[in-house]
């Protein structure tokens, strides 16, 4: 993760807005695990677990990989905790309601997602990391930043909100072309979700066109985020077993696991394509 620090403009302190975060970061030892000002009340030395993030659009195979990785890690003797969007006890259901209502403005929605994120981070993820668990995050701040940024909210503003978030130990990006994501999503649910196709942005009346344009914009944001935060980019269009092999290799290295041999149990065999 050293690479991401060097890449961060905040570290150079050159441009106005991010420089404050940089100054603060260099002031304390906690800087290596936060982007800027650390969350109030967090002692970094207490966090003995690892935070592993899997990012990627719907249809990139994230959830499948997380299910398989969980089994593999548990078979290796590691306890696993997962997190994902809209899963907080505090506002998870409220966001569902807001999305259904479709009356919410982009900024309010972005801030509700950040509330959802920090509620999970503070009340589930940090306690899990304190207990030495491996946290597998099904998306993280990057999806939230990308979604808000394509809707015109400033990147500096968004990075400012999430500067108190914990830096992952590993961040994987399962990159797939929008067309492939469309095929996979359609096969799975026989429809395309309102928000995943960016219909609030009036990109096109044609749902397919809207989906492709929106996902291309998101992908563009991810390319920027990938450089800024040193993602490990994987080809999400490969077979499930191939992608899983790449993931296991990197994670094994991070956790000091010697062998990376794994075959899914009977219960998960259907995922192994």
């Amino acid at each position, binding site marked *: 993760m050293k690479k991401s620090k060097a890449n961060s403009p905040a570290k150079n302190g050159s441009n*106005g*807005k991010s420089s*404050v*975060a940089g100054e*603060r970061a260099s002031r304390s030892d906690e800087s290596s695990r936060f982007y*800027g*000002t650390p*969350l*109030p*009340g967090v002692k970094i030395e207490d966090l003995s677990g690892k935070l592993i993030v899997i990012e990627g659009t719907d249809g990139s195979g994230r959830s499948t990989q997380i299910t398989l990785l969980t089994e593999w890690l548990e078979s290796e003797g590691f306890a696993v905790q997962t997190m994902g969007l809209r899963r907080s*006890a*505090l*506002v998870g259901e*409220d966001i569902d*309601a*807001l999305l259904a209502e479709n*009356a*919410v*403005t982009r*900024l*309010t929605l972005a*801030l*509700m997602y*950040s*509330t959802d994120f*920090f*509620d999970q981070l*503070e*009340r589930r993820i940090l306690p899990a990391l304190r207990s030495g668990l491996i946290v597998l995050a099904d998306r993280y701040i990057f999806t939230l930043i990308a979604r808000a940024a394509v809707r015109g909210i400033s990147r500096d*503003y968004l990075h*400012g*909100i999430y*500067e*108190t978030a914990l830096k992952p130990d590993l961040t994987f990006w399962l990159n797939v072309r929008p067309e492939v994501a469309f095929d996979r999503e359609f096969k799975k649910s026989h429809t395309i979700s309102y928000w995943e196709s960016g219909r609030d942005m009036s990109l096109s009346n044609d749902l397919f066109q809207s989906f492709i344009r929106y996902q291309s914009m998101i992908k563009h944001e991810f390319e920027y985020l990938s450089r800024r935060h040193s993602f490990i980019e994987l080809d999400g269009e490969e077979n499930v077993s191939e992608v899983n092999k790449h993931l296991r290799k990197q994670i094994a290295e991070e956790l000091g696991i010697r062998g990376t041999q794994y075959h899914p149990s009977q219960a998960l065999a259907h995922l192994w394509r």
Partner: protein
Amino acid sequence: MATRAAEIASPSEISREDSSLARRPYPGALVVVEGIDGSGKSTQLYLLKRWLEIGGYRLHFTEWNSSPLVKSATRRGKQRRLLTSTTFSLLHAADFADRCERQIMPLLHGGYLVLADRYIYTAFARDAARGCSPHWLRNLYSFAPTPDITFYFRAPLDVAVNRIIAGRPKLKYYEAGMDLGLSLDRTESFRIFQERILTNYDQMVETDHFVLMDGTVQVNKLQKLMRQIVGERVDLSKFAPKKK
């Protein structure tokens, strides 16, 4: 506490604010009241509103924490005591963003005089007292338009605290700052919490151009002064009823 409070006032904000004072991107105007609980601000804003309403001015009144959109989340968080300083702050920011995007900004663009009971400075003072970084808070609310006038009602801590305690059967958990573990006694906790907030407000008087109002002055005298200042600093003729 002093250093943190000092950071609340951000010098970089001021230059930007000064330049934007000259030319705002909307025809409306924004008048804000701030101050700790029991400082008399709501009474004074109510009287200002009545004065303008009776005169037939184009105005809208808005208060903190009133958006129905995030109300259920706030209520749940408070009842179950799920809120941390960060999620408390973010939830209120989401609420404010909703009001800002759907009420305040459209009204300012539509040429209304907007009166706000509490504004972003409430979040700066209160959330910093809870331990949020002032720098983080300034960024969080950077989307909010700068008020034309910010009245800061200041009353001595004892006066304000006694006014609140006398009027309430029981202080609420978060209201009293019980989440901070300042004291097991709710009244004492409230007192310490309000003192921190007061200190934080005081630090913003200069940097955020607050108009200081003495909350111990007789209500009608203070209101007279408030109306005079509004008349001087806001072009009220823009909001006056059209003569037939």
